[in-house]
């Protein structure tokens, strides 16, 4: 049996999506900027597709959607584009301690351009500390970027409260969220959450890789980060990746149709999986919150006395594919920052394993995973010089 439980990294592309992508490669291959019929048809379809995505997040206009090459580019456009365009008003940016590596790297680059960055801590469950957040805001703050769902520990951030705090300030602070783990998995309403910018990545919900979009609220001052010939959208020049955009739309349609049902079903599976691990394996710690504060797509445990790279490789040899927060599994040899951010020590980070579900994850797959996990953990604990009783 093969079980893929690293769906937070990427998901498999659905056949229905591939069919669309193929059609827009073989038949409807025109670009939107020609003056002939097939190009005009593509132009209209891209506008329709923007309208579709705008509607899915309750945006007011299709022009608020900018297609990108994925989540990383959407984050770059949001942060670099807004920071640079609003530099005259201030140079301060606020992010959370659980931002994705892409946002963390972008704000590092912005620091070199003279921006100041405050990283707001999270509590032991991975929830943003709202008191610290409010204190971090300054008259020079121009932009806030808070991840929608912590991708390692699964905490759903209090975006609504953040939006309310920001709307109470006496100057405009743009509010961005990286919604890679939220979009098409749970409701996301930019009006309700008072969001100005939202990054979305297509391959997180069974769409193609290399495509995503950025929602940009009308009136947001933003600069392009790339320059070139305008095909469709001057905020993001160059030829649109039409097949991938259409494929992402198909993937979103399918995901949204089943969103509520998947949420309920995965919540049950998540409870079941957590319950089995906690009752059948000793010396484990659940990383991140329980219940409604946690996305049903994520489970993360630390296993004491053993190391995560060995656990994940052991599981991989048994056909189960997962992610780990161990330093030994990263090129930088740094332990996972998310575990440290929620107050865990190095051992807890090294021994952490992240299991992430897709809406196709089954109970049988999770049963198989628990059996293999028990075997691998037991085996590595036998090897380990660290023992509970010593």
């Amino acid at each position: 049996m093969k079980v893929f439980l690293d769906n937070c990294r990427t998901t498999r592309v659905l056949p229905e999506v591939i069919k669309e992508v193929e059609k827009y490669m073989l038949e409807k291959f025109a670009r939107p900027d020609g003056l002939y019929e097939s190009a005009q048809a593509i132009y209209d379809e891209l506008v329709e597709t923007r309208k579709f995505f705008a509607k899915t997040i309750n945006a007011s206009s299709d022009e608020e959607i900018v297609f990108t090459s994925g989540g990383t580019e959407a984050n770059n456009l949001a942060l670099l584009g807004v920071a640079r365009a609003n530099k005259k008003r201030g140079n301060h940016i606020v992010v959370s301690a659980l931002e994705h590596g892409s946002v963390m790297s972008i704000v590092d680059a912005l620091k070199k351009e003279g921006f100041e960055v405050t990283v707001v801590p999270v509590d032991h469950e991975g929830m943003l500390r709202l008191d610290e957040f409010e204190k971090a805001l300054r008259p020079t703050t121009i932009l806030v970027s808070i991840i929608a769902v912590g991708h390692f520990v699964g905490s759903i951030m209090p975006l609504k409260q953040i939006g309310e705090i920001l709307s109470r300030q006496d100057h405009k602070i743009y509010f961005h969220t990286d919604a890679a783990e939220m979009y098409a998995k749970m409701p996301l309403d930019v009006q309700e959450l008072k969001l100005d910018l939202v990054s979305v990545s297509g391959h997180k919900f069974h769409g193609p890789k290399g495509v995503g979009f950025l929602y940009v609220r009308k009136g947001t001052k933003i600069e392009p980060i790339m320059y070139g010939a305008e095909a469709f959208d001057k905020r993001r020049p160059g030829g649109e990746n039409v097949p991938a955009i259409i494929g992402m739309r198909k993937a979103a349609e399918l995901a949204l149709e089943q969103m509520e049902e998947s949420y309920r079903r995965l919540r049950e599976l998540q409870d079941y999986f957590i319950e089995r691990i906690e009752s059948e394996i000793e010396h484990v710690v659940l990383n991140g919150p329980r219940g409604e504060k946690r996305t049903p797509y994520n489970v993360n445990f630390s296993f004491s006395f053993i190391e995560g790279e060995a656990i994940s490789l052991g599981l991989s040899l048994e056909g189960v594919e997962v992610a780990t927060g161990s330093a030994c599994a990263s090129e930088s040899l740094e332990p996972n920052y998310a575990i440290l951010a929620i107050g865990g020590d190095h051992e807890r980070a090294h021994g952490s394993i992240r299991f992430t579900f897709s809406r196709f994850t089954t109970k049988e797959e999770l049963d198989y995973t628990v059996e293999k996990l028990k075997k691998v953990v037991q085996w590595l604990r036998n090897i380990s010089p660290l023992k509970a009783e010593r």
Partner: protein
Amino acid sequence: MLKYTELVLDHFKNPRNLGRIENPDAEATEGSIACGDMMTVYLKIEDNRIVDIKFESYGCAANIATASMMTEVVKGLTLEEAKKITWKDIVERLGGLPPVKYHCSNLAIDTLRKAISAYEESLVGR
């Protein structure tokens, strides 16, 4: 995922000389939990020769595999011969390791040398 050779995976799956020796002539632990790599080596020594060696490892696959290979290489060697074995010898015997994993292979040799030193120091007082 880091790419390991078949031989590394084999030593990871089936580590040689795994476990503890009761009443060893020497033992040593190196590394730390904070670093994510820790190892204990146990030695049985007769006439300055390593007649038995066992290890325990808290660490990644590279750590486990290099420890396993190290024990295979030094078992039966005199202490002088064993001291000359380097991390490079072990990595070569394994068919190489990803560069980021070199430090893990150091730990196996460091722990072995520490155990031998502990043995030699224990003789001084006798």
